[in-house]
């Protein structure tokens, strides 16, 4: 058996079993058997010290990096090392991504950046700017911008916006194709505390309102606790604890980061 059977696949957004990952040029495994299950509509914060493998785990879940052992099931697609091209297309269609700052195309308009969220869909070669994209995609992008309260900045250049506003554009780009799952790697890192909280709040409320599964990493424990239903801590390549956010104690956090 590659992986243990799951209770009910229908409820499950993400499940990994005995997931192991070692980079080719790495000396030791980054992930040493991770078993993680996330149900649809859950908001989960992934925490852990720098280099504990949070980003690596996110990338394995969506097939950006190959898994060495174990298996991954994301949105009903089960794969061993890497998803097939067809599986990957399915995953991308239903998943939105947000990364750290600096992930927008600076010299493009805000609207074009949101339209980029359509790239990879069939016929999306026209989506490299808003001007060339089909008008229904432009309309979707505008409504995504309304969701993040930036519709009035649609025509501005992306780099004319503040860091917090840029991250909201990145959120709009992630939600523009109506994903069932949003994966966000340190979305609030390198923002000032106020805009960081704004961005997290927007995220979390949006996910909750639409029943979208949200998996995000953060090194800000206040964020992790305030904007998630569950916190999963990684340490030494394994899950240290996995509990409801309100049950996480100071001692748990000390254990995670010491």
């Amino acid at each position: 058996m590659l992986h243990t059977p799951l209770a009910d696949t229908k409820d499950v957004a993400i499940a990994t079993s005995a997931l192991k990952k070692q980079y080719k040029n790495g000396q030791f495994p980054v992930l040493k058997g991770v078993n993680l299950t996330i149900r649809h509509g859950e908001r989960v914060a992934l925490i852990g010290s720098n280099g504990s493998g949070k980003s690596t785990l996110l990338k394995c879940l969506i097939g950006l990096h190959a898994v060495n052992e174990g298996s991954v099931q994301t949105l009903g697609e089960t794969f061993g090392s890497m998803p097939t091209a067809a599986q990957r297309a399915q995953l991308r269609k239903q998943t939105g991504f947000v990364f750290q700052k600096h992930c927008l195309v600076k010299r493009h308009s805000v609207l074009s950046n949101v339209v980029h969220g359509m790239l990879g869909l069939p016929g999306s070669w026209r989506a490299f700017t808003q001007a060339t994209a089909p008008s229904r995609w432009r309309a979707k992008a505008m409504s995504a911008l309304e969701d993040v309260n930036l519709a009035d900045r649609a025509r501005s250049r992306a780099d004319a916006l503040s860091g917090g506003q840029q991250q909201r554009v990145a959120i709009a780009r992630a939600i523009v194709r109506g994903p069932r799952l949003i994966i966000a790697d340190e979305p609030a890192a390198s923002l000032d505390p106020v805009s960081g909280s704004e961005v997290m709040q927007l995220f979390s409320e949006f996910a909750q309102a639409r029943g979208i599964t949200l998996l995000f990493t953060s090194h800000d424990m206040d964020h992790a606790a305030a904007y998630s239903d569950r916190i999963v801590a990684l340490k030494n390549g394994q899950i240290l604890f996995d509990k409801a956010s309100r049950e996480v104690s100071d001692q748990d956090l000390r254990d995670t980061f010491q």
Partner: protein
Amino acid sequence: MSGVSPDLRSRFSGMSSINFVLILVVAAIVLSSINSVAPSLGQLADGLPSMINLLDRMWPPNTDANFLTRVGMRLVETFQIALAGAAIGIALSLPIGWLAAKKVSPIGPASWLVKAIISLLRTIPDLVWALLFVVTVGLGAVAGTMTIVVDTIGFCGRFFAEAMEDADKEPQEALAAIGANKVSILMGGILPDAAPSMINTALFALEKAVRSSVVLGLVGAGGIGQELKAAFDLFQYKNASAIILVIFVIVLVMEFITDWLRSKLQ
């Protein structure tokens, strides 16, 4: 010795005997080159009278209407060679630069091969290309245009590739994660970031094309240079001086225009 600081002493002793010998060899080569090919004072003095004589025979420049019309037509042809050659060369440099750009190229590590070919195009001087094309496609403007195309690819191919390599990586990775293919990443992520630098390069290429198209005629590849060569060959020095003045004016005007465009595009 207390007078020499240890720092200075280490710098002196840092010069190994190999370095010292190398410096001597280089100096010897430079001096002997000057000795054998640079003009001596005597030669300069001898040449001066014939230089003055030539200038005298060049003055005043020919302003005959028929002649100037012919020069005007040649001038138009020169611009056509420069514009057509630069436009085609810049257009071809886009895909070629993309293929050559490290980490960005759709052909992966094979990009160095494209880069090597671009270097080859650049290393061979334009007059040599012009001679090659005159031999293969015959005398005239087509050979000139082909020369400018090749020259432009050698120049723009390299700098376009570098601009694409320097484009911000984070947005490209974000687009890749969203599922964008290589072409979409190029169009949506790389080109917007590289555009200012690439436009600058293209304007320089245009300027360069005008300069080279002026001299290509010397080897029969069309344009105003052909008229200049004819004037010298037939000892029509007043024609030659008129042409040189015209060339001087266009090169200046061209520089002015591209400078102005650059400042507009900043």
